[in-house]
């Protein structure tokens, strides 16, 4: 894992000191709320429905055990004993007090963490593949490049006041576990025939009010030049992105208005000026960072076989465990979608327990996924049973990864000021309808994603079934969308028909699933595949006819 050097720590310490002073001045009424609000937002502090909400950055979703324990400590000491893992691989706390905020920031900085650039019109937390460094299909670990982007984008003076927020994701596999085509910039690390590393660069993807699948702006940029190329993209966006209309300000709108060819031409022209200036990191810096992401010392004698005689353990392994590139090891996903639970929520005791299990069984490393789950990426197969028992003891052994109850849901109107409707109760009600695990496994992979407003933090546009909460004269209503995917087969979900109330949307989802089970070509055809094969009409009939 990457460890801060003196520059990283100095930057964080200085920024923390600056914000602590700003908080103190606000508490003394020396600055107004209008003056303070943009400052607190740039430090990840929102005022939500019930209290202040703090969003803590987890770069590329990777944490050490020590950092994870600090997150538990924050939940216990400054919040109400829980945190909420988000679709940007971050964590949010919902009950923060401004008057305690300085102490909280001090605690976070002790473990190389902070909250800046988790809000505001800047480059946000860089996201990545939760299986990075462990996936058998990756060409290299993508996180050193995500780390370089983190360093480059941290307090970047030119890009701290962009037209709108800016999100970057980095992967290194053909399998996309980070939804890169739905980011402002999506980077896929690849290896060419000569064995060299380079990136395919997508630009202009995004969800929210105007969902767009990103376009390839460059099929190959050598890995040593991707920072200056990214700078060129940001420069074109910063120069021409609209600032007159918040709803037209994302880069996707600029790319759409210019067309990808013209946008690409402008980026290339900008890059031709930038590239010779020496903005890219020297090889020694690449080497320094790559060395910090060196894989742990895997035990070459680790046995590859697994005792699956405990049927509950066997189910968990078949659902939540993925192959690892090292023989004798596996990748374990910890579902944060237990029965009747809140998607992404974890108590301080659970966070501590995961940290301890990671220290004991997974080389002290935890990942957060954009699906609001956690991952232990390097687990000896021989330790999986003990790990599963440890997870089960704290209610974290739910074997439902990618099944109908593994639902993404934003905080919605239970917490969020922007929301038009609640998301969490919808997720809970749908999950409760399919509580039986055998039924869930029979349905197979089905990604349901629920957002409480058009901003789409619940990724409803990328849901096989997407649900969008809307306001209908002060009451909650829900639109139903079908056919989205955030994976390598990226597609945008489309609205199926008229919306529903809280109970109606749950019944509609039941009807969709019942129709799918009768219409699929076989047990291996996913819901999404059946939808793509048949089109929306029969699904619409199933929901609305009669």
């Amino acid at each position, binding site marked *: 894992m990457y460890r801060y050097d003196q520059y990283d720590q100095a930057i964080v310490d200085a920024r923390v000191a600056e914000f602590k002073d700003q908080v103190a001045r*606000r*508490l003394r*009424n020396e600055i*107004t*709320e209008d003056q303070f609000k943009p400052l607190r937002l740039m430090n990840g502090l929102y*005022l*939500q*429905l*019930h*209290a*202040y909400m703090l969003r803590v950055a987890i770069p590329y979703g990777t944490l050490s055990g020590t950092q994870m324990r600090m997150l538990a400590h924050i939940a216990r000491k400054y919040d*109400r004993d829980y945190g909420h893992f988000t679709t940007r691989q971050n964590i949010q706390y*919902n*009950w*923060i*007090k*401004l*008057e305690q905020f300085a102490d909280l920031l001090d605690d976070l900085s002790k473990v190389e963490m902070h909250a800046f650039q988790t809000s505001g019109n800047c480059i946000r937390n860089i996201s990545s593949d939760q299986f990075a460094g462990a996936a058998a299909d990756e060409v290299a670990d993508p996180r050193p490049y995500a780390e370089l982007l983190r360093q480059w984008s941290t307090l970047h003076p030119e890009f701290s006041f962009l037209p709108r927020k800016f999100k970057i994701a980095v992967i290194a596999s053909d399998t996309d576990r980070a939804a890169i085509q739905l980011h402002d910039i999506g980077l896929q690390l690849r290896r060419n025939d000569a064995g060299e590393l380079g990136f395919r660069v997508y630009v202009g993807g995004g969800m929210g009010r105007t969902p767009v699948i990103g376009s390839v702006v460059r099929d190959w940029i050598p890995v040593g030049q991707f920072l200056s190329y990214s700078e060129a993209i940001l420069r074109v966006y910063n120069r021409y992105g609209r600032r007159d209309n918040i709803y037209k300000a994302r880069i996707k709108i600029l790319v759409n208005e210019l067309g990808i060819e013209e946008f690409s031409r402008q980026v290339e022209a900008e890059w031709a000026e930038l590239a010779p200036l020496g903005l890219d990191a020297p090889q020694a810096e690449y080497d320094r960072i790559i060395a910090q992401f060196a894989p742990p010392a895997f035990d070459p004698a680790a046995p590859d076989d697994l005792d699956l005689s405990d049927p509950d353990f066997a189910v968990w392994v078949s659902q939540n465990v993925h192959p690892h590139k090292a023989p004798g090891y596996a990748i374990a996903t910890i579902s944060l979608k237990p029965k009747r639970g*809140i998607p992404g929520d974890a108590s301080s005791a659970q966070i501590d327990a995961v940290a301890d299990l990671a220290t004991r069984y997974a080389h002290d490393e935890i990942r957060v996924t954009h699906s609001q789950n956690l991952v232990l990426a390097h687990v000896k197969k021989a330790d999986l049973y003990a790990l599963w028992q440890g997870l089960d003891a704290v209610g974290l052994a739910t074997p439902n990864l990618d099944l109908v109850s593994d639902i993404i849901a934003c905080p919605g*109107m*239970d*917490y969020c000021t922007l*929301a038009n*409707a*609640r998301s*969490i*109760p919808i997720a*809970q009600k749908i999950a409760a309808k399919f509580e039986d695990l055998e039924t869930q496994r029979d349905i197979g992979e089905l990604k349901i994603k629920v957002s409480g407003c058009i901003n789409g933090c619940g990724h409803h546009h990328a849901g096989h079934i997407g649900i969008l909460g809307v306001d209908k004269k*002060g*009451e*909650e209503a829900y639109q139903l969308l079908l056919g989205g995917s955030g994976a390598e087969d990226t597609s945008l979900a489309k609205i199926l028909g008229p919306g529903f109330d809280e109970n109606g949307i749950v019944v509609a989802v039941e009807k969709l699933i019942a129709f799918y089970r009768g219409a699929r070509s076989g047990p291996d055809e996913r819901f999404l595949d059946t939808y793509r094969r048949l089109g929306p009409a029969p699904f619409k009939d199933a929901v609305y006819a009669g």
Partner: protein
Amino acid sequence: MPRILTGNRLETGDVLWWTGTDWSPLIRDAVAIGDEGEALVAQLVAAERINDPALIDVTGEPGHWLPTTTRERVRASGPSVRADLARGSLSTEVI
């Protein structure tokens, strides 16, 4: 329709209601606000100690107010999915 005054305490972010003389964390303590409401909001904005002061529509009567929008009912009662964190004077079941 009656209106009551709400906002969030600067220091803590806590949801509060105006009782006529002070602020309370319980909506049952709120008093109906008449035509003086807008002036009161302007005063609060200027004082800078209560964030996002707002007049909201409610039904019911003193001691038993119910906001008309789901959003304000959630603010008054607490998250509907965490009954253990409910504010006490209004059940999350009303949401």
